[in-house]
């Protein structure tokens, strides 16, 4: 068996699962010590799944306690150490960028279910990052392969408020903003079962980019899809069905969460504020360092990496630099 440093130079006979276990243990030690992963730790990609046109999910094996500590809205910095364009003195692009966790699953393949309970064998925890090819770095990530390294540090940032029993959640996503909305729906359903109502609206440019629809269908009381070009669901933006949805809801005990491009989130938050509904947005800004040193992630007088990405809707609406497109 070979555990070569670079995925490109690995021999065909190397044991991916063994490598994943070792890296996962290493991450667990670091997580126990610091409560988060401070320096990037590379993990081998266990699986990479096509979700939709230019959208993939990268699955990584992580310590169960790290996955359990992750809260929807938070992000990890994801870095391919063998980024083709990375290296000394190169500017104008970033090879490490923030991504929210999109999904978490337990892999029980190879486990003998008859003895698993006695042996305390709960399987491997996998964390999925769902990535849309929007540019240089995300494009690079979507073209990675099983066995390649993806280094993570995190989790960083703020989370959405915890839903309470008897409450209603309205989740509005645009494009790849689907990831934190799915994690929120998943957590709320896991914790509260049918004691929470979940209504989701997912906007996409067209049907071929639509992803996470089956996942959300299984979790939500209602799910509405919109596409800019009408190729799936309602023809238009998420704001159209939102108007109708909000009219039928009791604003008490209702919370709206949104994630997507700022030009979409702004009208969504305005509608929620008008309807008297508590609302929060997960901001997708450029976060070069994620640890409050570069100062390049300001929204209003806040640092997105530290005081975000989840921020209160009414506060965001007062910021003049909120609502435009950002890279």
């Amino acid at each position, binding site marked *: 068996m070979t555990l070569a440093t670079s995925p490109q130079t690995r021999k065909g006979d190397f044991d991916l699962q063994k490598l994943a276990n070792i890296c996962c243990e290493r991450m667990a030690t670091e997580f126990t010590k610091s409560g988060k992963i401070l320096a990037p730790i590379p993990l081998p990609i266990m699986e990479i799944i096509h979700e939709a046109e230019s959208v993939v999910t990268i699955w990584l094996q992580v310590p169960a306690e790290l996955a359990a500590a992750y809260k929807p809205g938070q992000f990890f910095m994801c870095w391919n150490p063998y980024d083709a364009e990375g290296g000394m003195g190169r500017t104008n692009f970033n090879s490490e960028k923030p991504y929210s966790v999109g999904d978490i699953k337990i892999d029980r393949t190879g486990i003998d279910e008859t003895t698993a309970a006695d042996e305390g064998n709960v399987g491997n925890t996998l964390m999925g990052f769902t990535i849309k090819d929007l540019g240089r770095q995300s494009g690079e990530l979507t073209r990675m392969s099983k066995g390649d390294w993806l280094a993570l540090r995190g989790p960083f940032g703020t989370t959405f408020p915890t839903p309470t029993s008897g409450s209603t959640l309205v989740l509005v996503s645009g494009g790849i903003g689907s990831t934190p909305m799915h994690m929120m729906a998943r957590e709320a359903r896991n914790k509260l079962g049918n004691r929470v109502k979940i209504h989701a609206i997912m906007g996409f440019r067209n049907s071929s980019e639509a992803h996470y629809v089956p996942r959300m269908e299984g979790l939500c009381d209602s799910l509405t899809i919109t596409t800019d070009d009408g190729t799936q669901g309602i023809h238009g933006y998420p704001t159209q069905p939102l108007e109708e949805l909000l009219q039928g809801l009791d604003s008490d005990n209702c919370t709206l969460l949104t994630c997507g491009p700022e030009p979409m989130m702004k009208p969504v938050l305005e509608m929620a504020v008008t309807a008297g509904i508590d609302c929060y947005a997960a901001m997708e800004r450029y976060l070069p360092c994620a*640890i409050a040193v570069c100062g390049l992630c300001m929204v209003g007088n806040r640092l997105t990496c530290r005081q975000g990405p989840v921020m209160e809707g009414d506060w965001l609406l007062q910021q003049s630099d909120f609502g435009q497109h950002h890279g």
Partner: protein
Amino acid sequence: MAELGVEVPGLALANPLLLASGVQGGTAAALHRVAASRCGGLVSKSIGPVAREIYPGPVCVEATDSVVLNAMGLPNPGVESFTEMMNENNFSKPMLVSIFGPDSQSVADIAKKMEAAGATALELNLSCPHSKPGSRALIIGQQPELIKEYISAVKQAVGIPVYAKLTPNTAQVSLEAGAALEAGADGVSLINTVSALEVDPYAGRPIIGNLLCGMSGPAIRPIAQRKVAEVALAMRRGEIPTAPILAMGGITTGLDVARFIMLGASAVQIGSALIYGDVDIFEEIENELTEFMDVQGYPNLESMRGIALDSMEGLN
């Protein structure tokens, strides 16, 4: 209660806690945010002749306990856009404007523009270990002759005080401090980051996008203290001109500040600690420092300045 105010050339500070250059301080919004904290003053991001983009990430990480590694690549908006920003903004705290440039003429030119835009003092970043991308040559701050050339050029160009920011990556920092002060610098700031490198054994390559990096954070504090003491002792012995020292390197607590003041510093700068406590760290440090001084009976900074040097008089 202990009096924390201190005056150094160009800056009247309500307390000795300045933001260190390069941490959060590159834009108006970020500088206002830091100014709203309990810091005594600001040091801007180092500003160069033209805008520079940030290096490929990871640009800054906590590598292990107390070790911060960075290679940001001196991202900055450039002097034109920064002076425009200065003209449009009034900050609630005094600001030392940090500048750098590829040659002495360009730095002198930037200095002039900063003075015209209202800067009351400048810090000349001579010491960034990664200021010349791709270059393996020595940096300016490692060459006393070049330090003199840079400082003289800037002092000729402006009337406001100039601080020389020194690198720890030399054999004897008092030589560089001496060169800067003899050329007319009004004070010295030290230390900049310690030249460093970290490799991930699994990936088999450095963990910072730029490969080489600079180290800061609590782990470098003893190194910084050694360097500050060396300069302060050289001043005491009259080997180099006496001038205020702005000390930094790994400060996270009020006691750390006391340590540097006792080694002769007039004021301190705080950078990496913002990773742990963001801008709220200034209030924590200020409270700790006040409490310490009250308990120990130091009425002001002057009363404890340099006292730790007394036991080291004979040191070289």
